[in-house]
């Protein structure tokens, strides 16, 4: 099959690539662009490990075609830190040990970033429902929720 030429913006950079019409954006990010921060846990939109932000909307990149990124703005975990300076959420995930194996962490960080952008002062319940599309099998979510609460408090004060 002939490839589809795509021109898009990823983490603020202009990016162009060729992809197959049936290729997911997750596969493009991981296999063509070397952005392996987004993970494939299921390929069916059930685990959230491949979460990215597409035009300010939280999506599972395994459910988006690479061709659909044309002209849009893509944010992945690789774009969260600025140089050596971690995003507050990244820092709080480390401080609270909100990760054990860490495979779900990029997805959680992106989902939490999206949540706090839309609701800067979420209750515990709002955090729990806001992150319910992301599976973590290691932590029981306790420390993830606490990290997000702490980050929200810091970001509110900033």
């Amino acid at each position, binding site marked *: 099959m002939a490839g589809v030429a795509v021109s898009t913006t990823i983490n603020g950079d202009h990016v162009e690539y060729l992809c*197959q019409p*049936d290729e997911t954006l997750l*596969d493009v990010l*991981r296999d063509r662009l070397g*952005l*392996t*921060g*987004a*993970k*494939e*846990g*299921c*390929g*069916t939109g*059930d*685990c959230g*490990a491949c979460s990215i932000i597409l035009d300010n909307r939280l999506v599972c990149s395994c459910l988006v075609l690479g061709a659909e990124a044309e002209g849009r703005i893509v944010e*992945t*975990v*690789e774009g*969260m*830190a600025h140089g050596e300076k*971690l995003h507050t959420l*990244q820092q709080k*995930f*480390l*401080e*609270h*040990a909100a*990760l*054990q*194996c*860490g*495979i*779900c*962490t*990029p997805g959680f*960080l992106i989902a939490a970033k999206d949540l706090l952008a839309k609701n800067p002062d979420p209750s515990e*319940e709002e*955090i*729990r*429902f806001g*992150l*319910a*599309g*992301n*599976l*973590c*099998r*290691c*932590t*029981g*979510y*306790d*420390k*993830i*929720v*606490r990290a997000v609460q702490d980050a929200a408090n810091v970001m509110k004060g900033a």
Partner: protein
Amino acid sequence: MNFDPRFSGRKFASVGTRPIRPDGIDKVTGRARYGADFNMAGQLVGRILRSPHAHAKILKIDTSKAEKLAGVKAVITAADLPDLTDGDAAMYDVLDNCMARSKALYDGHAVAAVAAVDASTARQALKLIQVAYELLPHVTDVDEAMKHTAPLINDTIFTEGLEEKPVKPSNVTKRSQFGHGDVHQGFGHADFIVERSFKTEQTHQGYIEPHACVANVSSDGTADLWVCTQGHFVYRQHCAQLLGLEASKLRVTSSEIGGGFGGKTHVWAEPVALALSRKAGRPVKLVMTRDEVFRASGPTSATSIDVKIGARKDGTITAAEATLRYSSGPYAGTWAEIGAMTAFACYKLDNVKTVGYEVLVNRPKTAAYRAPSAPMAAFAVESAVDELAKELGMDPVEFRIKNAAQEGTRSSYGPVYGPIGIGPTLEAAKTHPHMKAPLGKNQGRGMACGFWFNFGGQTCTDLNIGMDGSVSLAVGTVDVGGSRASLSLVAAEELGIAYEQVKAVVADTSSLGYNDMTDGSRGTFSSSMATISAARNAIKILRDRAAQMWDIPVDDVVWENGHAIAKGEKYGNLAALSLKEIAAASGKTGGPIAGHSELVADGAGVSFATHICDIEVDPETGAARVIRYTVIQDAGKAVHPTYVEGQYQGGAAQGIGWALNEEYIYGKDGRLQNAGFLDYRIPVCSDLPMIDTQILEIPNPNHPYGVRGVGETSIVPPLAAIANAMSNAAGVRMTHIPMSPPRVLAAIEAEREGRA
């Protein structure tokens, strides 16, 4: 090596603190490399063709069309993985599970594989492989499989462990028995007896990272394997044996691992990837889909358990007995045996007997899942213990305290206990504020106890001191949840330096001696013992170098707080030498400074926990929700308390999922009906409350710092704690796990009808 592993009761400077893990930044920035994040130049994509049938003879596999498809570089079947197991029955089963030889034994069993230039070509090639099957009758239920009329999965199986070899083959591979005393006599002394039967459904570890590897076999007989695994040295051994490679010529590198919980202790697709690479002459990347993970990796056993416990009016248990039947998939296992060992381990019993039966079924091969086999046995026993307390009119905590095992108790599985934590965790539960918190309508509280052995095993560690005084620690136990942080703390503690001065890495199989897997909660226990030993060996050298620098006898040099100190008034003019100063001079005093350790970490201290749980049940739907949860567990010594809490919380959450929702559902056709995270639903964030933890520290006398394993015990009590809470919340005794809404509703309705 004259290493003394005994507990010494020292004061800690680093151990017990909570620094940020060394692999943390890579994991929050997306830089950490997991199984599927590695690539090699020229790599092919591997894919596996799997049986859609639960039980079938493989009559013929025609791969010719697939081989002719443009872009296909190799197609393999069992013929490409010849039997090199040399009479090793367990390894033969591993081989057969990796690639079916004469029969497909479960839905998802691998029958062929391809390597192609890209994923879509590989998928297309699988469709061109023609397999002729002759369908055979199948059995997927553990009780059905034990019946004389059940289809035979392997007609060479004659039950082991019976007094006489049976005349006929069956699906029961082994009978095992544990206990002491005379249960018949013990039940004779009982005033109350509770007897119940229980079932638990099969669950999966549910790690978010599917199995993934990149294999590269060269024509000179050397090979590399990059893989997510809990034990790269074990993977090397197994892969080398199955492929006919020399172990030292196969280098296995463990990637970051995205969860394992026991499921990444077995090779599944790795030998297939190696065989594909060997045939294609190119690197092959093989990543399982989620569907494949559910159908064809290793879930835990489904079980059927009978329990009988008797007690006197004063609350003393007089006898306890259990029969445990565990499915092991289509291959022999020792799962019921482990269940039989753990079942009554929390209690001091004069008369106890447990019997385990290992049962073959047409389901994927059972693998370890966090304290494997113990949660199901604890579900049955701890449910019956609660029922018995009720009959006696005793508080369930008091009843357990009265019968709890102690130091000196002969355990139900044989050994005599040293200092243990079951009593202390129960006492802590008794006084915990959670126990006194008020409950609302349709809410109930339950509690339960759990036990796990903890493993030790073969461990090898290198500690190298750089010329700048920084320390690199190379360990061979895979870091599944923060062990590089805990082991760096241990190295810092022993050397008397800052945590930040140590960098721990997991070394590949060519860089370090053999290590057993990270399983049995052994990672921090074993590797910290080896790290302490390696550090002490390095300190010997550091003292020797300082003695040289000062030109005094080494016996006059002691090591304190990261410095060599010349002992005695005569050396009053010699300023202490720091590790950094000694390292800087090492080129002139004898070369690099390193400490090595090779040991078998014996004496893993057993682990106990008590959990308290509140649930709310909707009587209209049967849906239950955990509203408060507390874990109390003995850690021996919590090296990094935050990650210890994390283990407690994570195990509890998995247990909650198992108790309420998770199960493998098979159709009458023997096919798995819910092979995905949508239909096999693990707990999400909005399903759970915060999970409170209380760490007790009863030192393990067989570890210098008193460390016990902490990873697994936390999954043992939740099934029973929630069942006991359910009994108090909804008035129904649930004997079938998971307590999913339809089962709970049916029980509530049956109870209502019974009362009407």
